């Protein structure tokens, strides 16, 4: 090793389980450590992004920051106490929870508070009435960001937002994490919704501030923390793609492999989103198709031969997303019904829904392929097509055109959310007044269904609680076998304009087309089932 000189810098964290130091400092310090005979490798700490509720071009369609939508009067009046929570009285709203047979499972177990689910995400809103009683611990791993990623890219950190809005810095300033926490374990308390496993406990493993960016090292830290602190399941809806031909990226991938193996050995299952690029994913996470879902007018990106992570990493449970029911087009549509949240799709559109009337079709955005372990309802627009092909509405409460029917998935979101729209009712006998709920879609939303089901299985099987192999086997054995997926892959050759936008798809990969994706590729072991695995011992 060269003679040390004063280089400056900081050791940000040390993760002995995977023999890793995270350091910030000048390039000289990096070179110095690289030259050390004790270093296997020294690589940049890269940035991952959360798996957006939809693909980025759709998500960024709205630029409004901290969008709050007043829903006026309560949808219905609930007088007598109901079990489950009253939002289940709104027909079609929580279709996703019913679809995985959770209400039947609740007759057997609501979960055991000794079972902990870590939500590795943007945090959990511990001020939200649906979540505050459910959170066992808040671990803010972003405090060691140096510089804070959101501050670096956007000039604003969570601490800044906390000051601006007089809220806690460690809460969820994005909204994504709280949605996931609510789906897993929102309180069963006679108000609003309850989660799929309402009696298990949540741990906020906050890996990202409001903007949804996280360092690889922070994600790895979350996995190791969970393993070392007895967290049974980690639900992560973050990710990206690594080019393993680049030795530095290969090193990062190997660190993920080591961290996941360590977690499994310690009894922690990691459940992750397949991704929203509608790409085919093979063993180890390798991308087997060219092109990812692309907005017309944008250039196509190609991850062929790259590796999806962390969902693709061996030992992680990879989750694909399914929709509610694909609705069909109409010979004519009244004015005002065919916009960006279309409730009616003209039969004259060039791009028409697939599998009209069928349930549980692969969502148009979901990754798929032989690597997929299991599918869960992540929701999809009403016509299960991209926004620009007039894919349709998320459903209630974005629109009441279909009464309370949601096509995407409904849960709580953070009362401090800046990135997920907050729908609230000033007065309500159904929901907590003035608190935030939202309907969104994505493999991010599918993933917590699986995490919650694993938590129910762990609750019911004390002997298997720290045995990831057994928990995963029971979950897969009990999955609902689904056949008849009609959703095809992306079309490389369809370069026509989007039905809604009229913008040309210059490179292809904007529209679906071709032979339907196989059931095995779409669903893995099947659609996750909360009920059946509880009887399999």
């Amino acid at each position: 090793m060269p003679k040390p000189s004063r280089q400056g810098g900081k050791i940000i964290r040390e993760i002995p389980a995977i023999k890793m130091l995270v350091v910030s400092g000048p390039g000289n310090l990096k070179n110095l450590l690289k030259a050390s005979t004790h270093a296997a490798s020294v690589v940049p700490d890269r940035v991952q992004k959360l798996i957006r509720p939809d693909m980025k071009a759709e998500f960024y369609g709205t630029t409004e920051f901290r969008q709050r939508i007043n829903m006026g009067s309560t949808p219905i009046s609930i007088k007598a106490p109901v079990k489950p929570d009253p939002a289940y009285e709104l027909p079609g709203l929580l279709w996703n929870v019913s679809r995985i047979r959770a209400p039947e499972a609740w007759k057997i177990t609501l979960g055991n508070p000794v079972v902990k689910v870590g939500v590795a995400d943007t945090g959990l809103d511990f001020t939200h009435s649906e979540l505050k009683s459910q959170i066992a611990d808040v671990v803010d791993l972003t405090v060691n960001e140096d510089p804070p990623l959101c501050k670096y890219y956007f000039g604003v950190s969570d601490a800044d937002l906390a000051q601006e809005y007089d809220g806690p810095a460690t809460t969820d300033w994005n909204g994504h994490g709280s949605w996931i926490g609510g789906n897993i374990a929102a309180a069963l308390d006679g108000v609003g919704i309850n989660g799929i496993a309402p009696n298990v406990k949540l741990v906020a493993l906050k890996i990202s501030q409001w903007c949804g960016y996280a360092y690889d090292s922070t994600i790895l830290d979350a996995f190791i923390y969970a393993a070392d602190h007895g967290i049974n399941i980690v639900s992560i809806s973050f990710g990206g793609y690594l080019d393993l031909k680049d030795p530095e990226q290969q090193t990062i991938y190997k660190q993920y492999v080591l961290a996941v193996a360590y977690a499994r050995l310690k009894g922690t299952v990691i459940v992750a989103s397949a991704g929203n690029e509608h790409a085919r994913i093979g063993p180890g996470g390798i991308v087997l198709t060219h092109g990812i879902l692309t907005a017309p007018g944008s250039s196509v990106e190609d991850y062929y031969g790259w590796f999806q992570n962390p969902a693709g990493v061996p030992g992680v449970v990879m989750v694909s997303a399914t929709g509610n029911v694909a609705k069909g087009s109409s010979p004519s549509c009244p004015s005002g019904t065919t916009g960006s949240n279309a409730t009616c799709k003209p039969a004259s559109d060039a791009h028409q829904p697939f599998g009209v009337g069928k349930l549980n079709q692969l969502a148009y955005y979901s990754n798929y392929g032989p690597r997929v372990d299991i599918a869960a309802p992540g929701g999809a627009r009403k016509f299960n097509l991209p926004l620009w092909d007039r894919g349709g509405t998320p459903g209630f409460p974005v629109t009441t055109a279909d009464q309370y029917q949601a096509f995407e998935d409904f849960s709580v979101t953070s009362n401090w959310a800046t990135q997920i729209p907050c729908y609230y009712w000033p007065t309500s006998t159904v929901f907590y007044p003035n608190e935030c709920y939202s309907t969104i879609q994505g493999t991010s939303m599918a993933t917590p269904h699986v995490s919650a089901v694993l938590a129910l299985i762990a609750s019911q099987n004390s002997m298997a609680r720290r045995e990831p192999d057994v928990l995963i086997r029971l979950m897969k054995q009990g999955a609902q076998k689904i056949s008849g997926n009609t959703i095809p892959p992306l079309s490389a050759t369809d370069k026509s304009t989007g039905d809604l936008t009229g913008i040309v798809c210059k490179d292809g990969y904007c529209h679906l087309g071709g032979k339907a994706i196989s059931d095995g590729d779409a669903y893995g072991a099947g659609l996750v089932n909360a009920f059946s695995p509880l009887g399999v011992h």
Partner: protein
Amino acid sequence: MSSRKNWFIVLALTMLIALILLSFGSAPIANAQGAASQRFIAIAKSDADLSTLRAEALKAGGEDHP
């Protein structure tokens, strides 16, 4: 109230510019470097090497983590 509104507009514009820059870069989703260029991961050959590597980083002027 008006200063808060202005703040929203500035933030929204900053976000848009940053997102456009990220979207049009050749780097893929997992590859938003920039800030990451000054932050790195050092992997030791063994547990014993990790302690030594840490000591070397400190000796070179790195501050310890909190």
